[in-house]
Each structure stands twice: as structure tokens, then as C-alpha cells.
């Protein structure tokens, strides 16, 4: 103890000032693991109270579809939140991108691939505009994107009336899309052959009349998983990911260290908008129509999912995989109620209660794991 304190131990000698931790504890310390714990809790709850049909293959696909749609938005929102900004306009963006997509495809009668590209590019443009206003004026993104929440929703209404000649619903998307190759990626189910073969072998449940309950994996689930993995890689492993954390943690310090904060934030705003446009394309192609209420309040659900997933509202901390789990929790609670015999009147109480419980549990687990007091 009395020998000098300086350079006494080799860099990789164990430090006497550390209590030994197991790999398990270290794993539990990741922000997303709390969300996973919340997911386990919610799953247990439904395993007990819900109709067993909920956890059949069909049931899982059934709650994963809304979870996936929400999740794609939530991952975009999570990255933006880590980067220190909000986007409250994603819900309206879904509607507006749906309108843009429908207009290009149906009203202007363009090929599907053009419509998709145009919609994504258009959304990216609006995202960049959002970002530029926030960054140039220094106003909080909350208020700027809130203005866009109204503006985009309003423009959707006006645009729909213009595109359809007076209605607030645009239809005929399926017919206009025809059977373009792009449909494989943006609509319907994937692996249909595989599932048909499963069903033929009796590995998948069928309805009373013999049709298989699950005909494939809805493409949005694949997009959801793919985007979650990609976002996680970007966040944890790339230079850009480091910049996101830095920009969100302390924009000033980041700028002083040479991080191009404006560029990072603009790209994040664009990414969020593109995620919204992707959800719009997926849902419009699935539904075959779009209307002025699409995506209503999705911005809050996305932020909720991101927060359940461990994102800090103040920025600089969070994970994409957490948002992934958060979206699944949300989707499960959303659909799960229909598998229980709880009265619909109690739906909101139930939703709020589950939310609170999941977050509390998540928080409790995280605190236990990190040893905070």
C-alpha cells in the first residue's frame, strides 16, 4: 500500500478497486436488457390470462405485424432520440407519405418502383427540412416537428381531396400496383412456399375448413428485424454511431471535438422520415387504400416504444434493439387485450397500466444490474 500509486500496476492487471462482476451482470447492464425483461413480464402475463390462441404461430404473427409497423417507426425515433432530438411529425408523415405514394401510383399512374423511390426521396426531403429548421433556428425540435404534425396532417387532407376529387380516402392501390416484382419486398407474406409445405406436412395449424392459419411471414416483420439489426450495428460499431451518441449527449462538446453535429442530426431527421415513409408504403400496399387518419398518434407510440426500450428523453443514451423490444411489448399489449375477456371499456386503463408496469420492471431490473441505489 505504501509503494507509489503511479504506474504501479500494469494496464491489464486486475484492479483491487473493482468488485468482480460476472459476464451475466455485465450483460444485464446493456440498456436493452431491461426492455427484454419487460417483454418477459408482459409475455408471462398474457400466457396466464389470455386465450392460448395468442401464442400459436398465427397469434404471434398477428401481434408481430402491428409491432413491426410501430417498431420501424420506433427505431427511427430511437436513433433520433439518442441524437438528442424528437420528431413528433412521424405519425402525420405516415399519412402524408401514404398520400404521396398513392398519388404517384394511382393518380399519376406511375410504376410501383418509381412510386416507392419517389415517396422515400420525398420523405427524406421533408425530414431534411425539419432538421434544417430545427438546426438553423435553434428552436427545440419538439415544437418545430409539432408544427409539422399539424401541417403534414392538414396537407394530407387537402391533398387527398385534390387527388380524389373530394374524398378523404384514396383507393385502388392494389390494382395500380399490378404484380410488380417490388411487391415481393413491400407487401404480403414472405416464405409462402415454405409455409405451404409446412402446412401440407401438418406442422402449422389450420382452420376448421383446412386452410393454413399462417401463410408466411408478413414482410413488415422482416423489414423490422432487418432495420433493428442495421440500426444496432450503426449505433454501436460505426463512426456515425459514435457521432450520434456524441451529438445527443452534449451537442456543444461534440461540436468542440470536431463532430459535424448538424450533418448528423439532419441525417437522423431524414432517417426518421424515411422510416415513416416505409411504414406508409407497407401499410398502403397491404390495405390497398389510404386515408387522412393514417398514422394518427403513431409518433407517441413510437416514442413510448423507444423509452420502454431504454432511450433517455434527454438524448445521448439508448439503443435500437431496445426500441425493438419496446415495440414488441407495445404490440403485444395492444393486441393482447383482444385475447382476454377484459371489457373493451377498460382497454385504456389496461394499456396505461401495462405500460407503467413494463417500464417499472425494466427500470427495476436495470437498477439491480448496475447496482445504482
Amino acid at each position: 500500500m505504501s509503494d507509489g500509486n503511479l504506474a504501479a500496476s500494469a494496464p491489464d492487471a486486475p484492479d483491487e478497486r473493482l468488485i468482480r462482476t460476472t459476464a451475466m451482470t455485465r450483460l444485464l447492464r446493456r440498456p436493452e436488457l431491461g426492455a427484454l425483461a419487460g417483454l418477459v413480464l408482459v409475455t408471462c402475463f398474457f400466457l396466464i390470462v389470455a386465450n392460448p390462441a395468442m401464442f400459436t404461430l398465427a397469434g404471434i404473427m398477428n401481434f408481430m405485424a402491428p409491432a413491426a409497423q410501430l417498431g420501424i417507426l420506433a427505431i427511427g425515433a430511437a436513433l433520433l432520440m439518442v441524437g438528442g432530438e424528437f420528431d413528433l411529425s412521424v405519425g402525420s408523415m405516415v399519412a402524408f407519405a401514404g398520400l404521396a405514394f398513392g398519388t404517384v401510383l394511382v393518380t399519376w399512374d406511375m410504376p410501383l418502383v418509381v412510386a416507392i423511390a419517389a415517396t422515400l426521396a420525398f420523405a427524406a426531403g421533408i425530414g431534411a427540412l425539419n432538421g434544417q429548421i430545427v438546426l438553423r433556428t435553434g428552436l427545440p425540435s419538439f415544437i418545430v416537428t409539432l408544427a409539422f404534425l399539424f401541417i403534414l396532417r392538414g396537407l394530407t387532407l387537402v391533398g387527398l381531396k385534390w387527388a380524389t376529387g373530394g374524398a378523404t380516402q384514396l383507393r385502388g392501390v392494389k390494382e395500380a400496383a399490378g404484380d410488380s416484382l417490388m411487391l415481393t419486398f413491400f407487401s404480403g407474406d414472405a416464405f409462402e412456399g415454405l409455409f405451404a409445405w409446412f402446412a401440407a406436412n401438418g406442422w402449422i395449424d389450420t382452420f376448421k375448413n383446412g386452410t393454413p392459419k399462417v401463410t408466411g411471414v408478413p414482410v413488415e416483420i422482416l423489414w423490422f428485424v432487418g432495420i433493428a439489426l442495421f440500426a444496432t450495428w450503426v449505433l454501436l460499431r460505426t463512426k456515425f454511431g459514435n457521432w450520434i451518441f456524441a451529438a445527443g449527449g452534449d451537442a456543444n462538446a461534440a461540436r468542440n471535438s470536431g463532430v459535424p453535429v448538424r450533418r448528423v442530426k439532419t441525417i437522423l431527421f431524414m432517417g426518421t422520415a424515411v422510416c415513416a415513409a416505409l411504414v406508409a408504403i407497407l401499410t398502403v400496399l397491404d390495405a390497398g387504400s389510404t386515408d387522412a387518419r393514417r398514422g394518427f398518434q403513431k409518433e407517441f407510440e413510437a416514442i413510448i416504444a423507444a423509452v420502454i426500450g431504454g432511450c433517455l428523453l434527454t438524448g445521448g443514451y439508448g439503443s435500437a434493439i431496445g426500441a425493438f423490444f419496446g415495440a414488441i411489448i407495445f404490440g403485444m399489449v395492444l393486441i393482447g387485450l383482444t385475447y382476454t375477456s377484459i371489457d373493451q371499456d377498460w382497454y385504456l386503463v389496461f394499456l396505461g397500466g401495462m405500460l407503467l408496469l413494463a417500464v417499472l420492471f425494466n427500470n427495476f431490473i436495470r437498477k439491480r444490474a448496475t447496482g445504482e441505489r
Partner: protein
Amino acid sequence: AEDINIIVVSHGQASDPFWSVVKNGVAQAAKDMSVTVDYRAPETFDMVAMAQLIDAAVNQEPDGLIVSIPDGDALGDAIRKAVSAGIPVISMNSGSQVSASLGALLHVGQEEYDAGKKAGEALASMGGKKGLCVNHEVGNLALDQRCQGFADGFGGSVTVLPTTNDPAEILSKVKASLASDGDIDTIMALGASLAGEPVVQAVKDSGMNGSVKVATFDMSANFLQSIVDGDATFAIDQQQYLQGYLPVVFLANNARYGLMPGGNVPSGPNLVTKDKAAQVIDLSAKGIR
């Protein structure tokens, strides 16, 4: 009794006064027929979410499914899937045109557009020239269609006044409209308690009761009282209690005995005017009309 399980999926929120009456009808029918009925609806007007709720319902293989179809395109796939899975489906409230083509057994209800048109015609025949349609949830297709029908039936010039569903705001906006356009002589509200009541108040506050006619879709006890008092002309009653009640009865009988009526059941529209209003106030206050 045997275990008969019926699921209702509608597009109207449980807190919507109109739909709470439907839900009451459903609950009464479930009691009367001794069947279990689950009522489900998305929390906002959201076709994508509603399609997912139908999917979830199909997955539970109920003995009958009751759906409202405000958007045949968006809900078509889910309903066809139910039908192809062998689940008897009845549509209610909206979707009479597409109901049969999607494979539903029958339709109970009345088209929003038709109801609006009838109301518009009635108001035009009372001498209305310039109308105002107060839409408290723009983009909700059902409400948009009510307005559209009203405009078409009314014939004269109709402006749509979009508002949020805050009564104080509706009150102020209607007052503002009346102040800035003195020609307005007819106001159509799309919901009685949320919109109809503040509209009546606004007209009173503007000193125009008598010269401006007020009508509303659906009913609320207070609005009916206004009809009795002469401050409003009529309320359009779809008898939506029946839209909830009848399909459950039909499907229960279908499950037990294979019985099913041969055609659609029109539940409305029904104009409740001064002479009838007093009788229904109590029923309305209990959520039956």
C-alpha cells in the same frame, strides 16, 4: 348453455357516445342470448389497426364475427380471410355496398351518407339556404360521409367547419362563423353531445335561436331537451342499439340452429323531432338511444 363466442370489431372508440350505445346493444344481446361477446375497437379511427384486430379475432376462431366496414379496401383482406376460415360474418353500421361482395351474410345498419342525405333534404325542405356542417374529427371517413351526404341532400351552399372535439372550441368556432357570415341559416352537427350541444349554445349566445336551424346526428339527452324546447329541429337516429343487438341475435341463432334472415336490415334513419323527443330523453340518458 353451450359455449358460443362472438366477436365484434368496430371502428368506433368505446368512449364515442354513438358507439357506446352500440356496445350497450351488444351487451344486452349477449345477456339475452346467453352467449359471450367480446367488443373490440381501435382507439382512434385507424383502418390498419382495425384490420389487425379482425385478424386477431379470426385467429381465435369465434362462432361469429360482427364488423363495421368503413373502408372495404383496407378491411377486405381480413374479412375475406375470416369468411374463408369458415367464420360467419355480419357487417353492421357501414359497408352495405361491399358487405355482400366480401362474403358477409348480411348487413344491419344504415349508410352514413344516406342518413346525411336524408337530413339534408329535410333541412332544405324547412327552407334552409346556407348550411354549415361541423366536423369534429376530420378524416374520420364515417363523419366525412355524413357531411358529404348532408351537403348533397341540402342542395344549397354548405361549408364544412373542422374542429377538434373540444366543446369549448366548437362553441367559439360556431359563434365565429355566425358572426362572420350572417347568411348561415342551418347548422348540422355530426354528434349530439360533443358537437350538437355546443352548437345549440352558440346559436343561443349569438341571439339567433329561431332563425338558425340546428340538427344533429345521433342523440344525447341534452340535445333532445333542446329539441323539446324548440332550440333545435331534429336528431337523426340510426337506432344503433339495434346495430349492436341484432347481429348478435342472428349469429347466436345461426350457431345454435343455423338460422339467418334472408336480407339486410336497415336500422335507420329515423328523424327524432319535437313530438318524439320527450319520450326518448330517458332512454338516451341510459345509453340505449
